[in-house]
């Protein structure tokens, strides 16, 4: 448990100062030839479980070469994203990829897509292909059910050249599949080799560190801020109109919720608040299994074993029992919480940081009075919250082991192009498509038209990304609010023992904790008791949880933590 080191320089981006303070970067720069012995040879060694950190990682990691294309309007601090509030005129955009790196090969990509996929041969894909010098063929899959397809695709002998895997889909045996099926990118990226791809060289090292799977650098990461991404949003317009104070403790929230709920008028105080409860009560992160563990008084403890975990569940159970949660949230089979929020049926809901902008923009035309804001995560007793860092990268693009070197190079050309930072021509094309076809420039800002909304919907941004940033020049107020929220929360954020590491658990224990999430949902909805969780925890311990603890402990002793 290493406290987030306060930035030594007052204004410099703390991500970098944080990074430069790690032994990892120092060793990466100093390290000579990458040692790939662990990754070559027979198939068995590539399926090894565990994690790679410290010196072993340093030999693999790419050199970090920061870029300075455009100074962010709000520099990153406390692990936040960098914020850009102003648009940059097309004429002043810089080129980060001066010459085409693609060699004209074809790359088949399977990726999740949220929303309706555009036609496979549309002007935006072709424009991107043309600019990169590669022909991409997309197999877009529904992002919400991606986990159900991924396992089957990886089990077949014909996997696409490039497969995008979100971190939250790395459940069950998928991590071992990643180790078995995907190529080691180390020979192309480790150390100074990455300099051939300048935009990838500017990807922060902790995102690369997280991309080490089974002892080899296999993924190209989408870097993320390590600050928690779940924001408790509230309807600022309703709060102001009714004179509500934003609650600052668990009890205050419950009291406010009882007052604000008016079921007759079809208004409930909140939607399901489980995620926020875990943050407010200081529970170790639940997003990645390795983050479930941390040292407490010299002993490795799992999140499900902590008092905080039970207390958080008990508080959410109280919310449900007090009937302040929307009944459809209880049923869990009706649409999403965001729609209930914008419809005014719930006044508070929690969701990803991106909703701040998405929902505001969506409502701006439909409901001009609509105003939302994120409340700071409160400590449950009203004091400062204890927050824990998320993984610094959560979506990865992998290359099939069967792909030829030419395909790998072409993929890296795509990744390098898509990782272009804000203020470049490449970024504009990746985010907004072609001017005239997909967007027009209004008041100096690119604005997507209908074709743009239809065709420029993700896809390429899953293959490569620059360091985490937020840019909405059309709504500078939201960028400011988002980044400042991250910075305030970042100040309370600590890192757990396995922060930044991708850990492959041994097969026999991968399914051990499968049912906890279900159990949580049962407990908060009053179908099971907190004592059932304690029962499940003791079963978990006897069925292998204690052995898993020893295994993680050994990993920590051998490899060392990446979080200091």
């Amino acid at each position, binding site marked *: 448990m290493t406290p987030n080191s306060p930035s030594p320089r007052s204004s410099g981006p703390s991500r970098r100062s944080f990074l430069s303070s790690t032994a990892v970067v120092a060793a990466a720069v100093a390290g000579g030839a990458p040692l790939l012995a662990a990754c070559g040879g027979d198939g068995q060694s590539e399926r090894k479980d565990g994690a790679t950190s410290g010196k072993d990682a340093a030999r693999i990691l790419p050199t970090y070469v920061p870029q300075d294309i455009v100074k962010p309007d709000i520099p990153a601090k406390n692990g936040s994203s960098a914020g850009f509030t102003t648009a940059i005129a097309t004429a002043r955009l810089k080129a980060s990829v001066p010459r085409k790196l693609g060699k004209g090969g074809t790359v088949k990509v399977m990726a999740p897509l949220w929303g309706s996929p555009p036609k496979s041969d549309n002007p935006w894909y072709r424009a991107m292909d043309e600019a990169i010098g590669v022909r991409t063929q997309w197999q877009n899959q529904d992002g919400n059910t991606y986990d159900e397809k991924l*396992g089957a695709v990886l089990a077949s*002998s014909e996997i696409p050249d490039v497969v995008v895997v979100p971190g939250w889909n790395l459940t069950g045996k998928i991590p071992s*599949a990643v180790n*078995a099926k995907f190529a080691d990118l180390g020979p192309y990226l480790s150390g100074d080799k990455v300099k051939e791809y300048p935009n990838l060289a500017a990807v922060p090292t902790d995102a690369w560190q997280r991309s080490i799977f089974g002892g080899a650098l296999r993924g190209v990461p989408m870097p993320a801020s390590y600050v928690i991404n779940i924001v408790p949003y509230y309807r600022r317009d309703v709060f102001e109109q009714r004179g509500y104070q934003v609650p600052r403790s668990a009890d205050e929230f419950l009291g406010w919720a009882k007052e604000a709920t008016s079921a007759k008028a079809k208004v409930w105080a909140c939607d399901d608040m489980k995620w926020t409860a875990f943050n407010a009560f200081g529970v170790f992160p639940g997003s990645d299994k390795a983050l479930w563990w941390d040292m407490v008084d010299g002993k490795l403890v799992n999140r499900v074993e902590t008092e905080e975990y039970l207390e958080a569940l008990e508080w959410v159970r109280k919310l449900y029992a007090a*009937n302040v949660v929307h*009944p459809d949230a*209880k*049923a869990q*089979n009706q649409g999403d919480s965001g729609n209930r929020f914008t419809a005014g049926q719930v006044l508070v809901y929690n969701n990803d940081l991106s909703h701040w902008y998405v929902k505001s923009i969506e409502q701006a035309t439909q409901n001009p009075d609509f105003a939302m804001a994120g409340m700071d995560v409160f400590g449950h007793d009203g004091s400062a919250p204890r927050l824990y860092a998320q993984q610094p990268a959560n979506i990865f693009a992998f290359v099939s082991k069967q792909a030829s070197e030419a395909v790998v190079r072409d993929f890296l050309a795509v990744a390098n192009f898509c990782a272009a930072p804000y203020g470049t021509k490449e970024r504009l094309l990746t985010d907004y498509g072609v001017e005239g076809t997909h967007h027009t420039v209004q008041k100096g800002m690119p604005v997507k038209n209908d074709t743009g909304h239809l065709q420029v919907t993700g896809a390429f941004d899953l293959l490569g990304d620059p360091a985490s940033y937020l840019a909405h020049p059309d709504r500078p107020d939201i960028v400011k609010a988002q980044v400042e929220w991250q910075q305030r929360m970042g100040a309370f954020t600590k890192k757990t023992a396995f922060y930044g590491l991708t850990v492959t658990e041994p097969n026999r224990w991968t*399914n051990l904790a499968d049912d906890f999430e279900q159990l949580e949902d049962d407990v908060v909805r009053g179908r099971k008791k907190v004592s059932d969780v304690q029962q499940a925890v003791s079963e978990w311990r006897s069925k292998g949880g204690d052995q898993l603890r020893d295994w993680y402990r050994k990993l920590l002793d051998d490899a060392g933590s990446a979080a200091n």
Partner: protein
Amino acid sequence: MSQHSTVPGAQPTRDGAAPAGAPSRGPGSGPAGTAGAGAPPGRRRAAGKAAGKEGRVSLRTRFRRDRTLVLMTLPALLLVLVFTYVPVLGNVVAFQDYDPYLSENGFVAMLESPWIGLENFERIFSDSAFWRAVENTLVLFLLQLVLFFPVPIVLALLINSIVRPRVRAVAQAIMYLPHFFSWVLVITVFQQIFGGAGIIAQTLREHGVEGFDLMTDPGIFKFLVTSEGIWKDAGWGIIVFLAALSAVSQDLYEAAAMDGAGRWRRMWHVTLPALRPVIALLLVLRVGDALTVGFEQLLLQRDAVGPDAAEVLDTYVWWNGIRNQDFGYAAAAGLVKGVVGLGLVLAANKVAHLMGEQGVYKK
């Protein structure tokens, strides 16, 4: 296919002199009686078999005689082989610590995964969640058998009693319609009506009654599932019964009426005996399918009431196999389900035979 075969099975009644004769007709008399020149292929083959036993026609002669028919069945046979019998071999992973990523593809991985014998089965039988799923499955099956199964029969009788063709067509169309709604839609409709923020709950709230929510109550969940099923599929279920009813000769009704039988006695002595073979057959099929009680419907509502109330064998297998990628374990659970299902269908078929009906097959 088996449903079609029952309709001709009901036909002898039309030829028979008295309706009372139909139930006493032995199971063996049907095909043998109808096997003739104009009989469908299946019948002719049955006749050929009978002839083979008596007249000693050699296999080669029979093959030469029927080669066109044999050729015609080949594509279907191939489909059954590839999509039904070959995948059955995959059940071998139930006895393995199966990891599909051990080798280049999932099939080769089957050969390489370590053999662990009955360990998966031991785990399953000691897993309380599995027994809960079994219990839920059986409870739901019995409930659907008692509450759901008779509904289409009653509806079919009702529709059959409508004389005016146009009214009848409209009524049928309306009854069939919900079958074509997806489960997502059906559950949304139910949630909007019976949920905690639904029409009924909000109306009750206006009159000061709180807490109406049928959709998240584990206690009544089994009735909820059954009524959703009835609403969606009861209308569709009448098709087979209507087909059987249309095969009943009007002469029988007229003769019965002449003999002074009223509406109820005609239904009892004419209509229901005509439906009996169909009912028996569908009952056997339903029992064979007992452990399949609506996967999609239950999966969609699993979170609303929790697995204690909503987990059935199919969702259990899905959860462990697809969601948690514990393939060997899920395959073992699926295998247990298959074996029990086979036992049930054999038992039900036996009961059908004892009742003097054909069932799905005979020796």
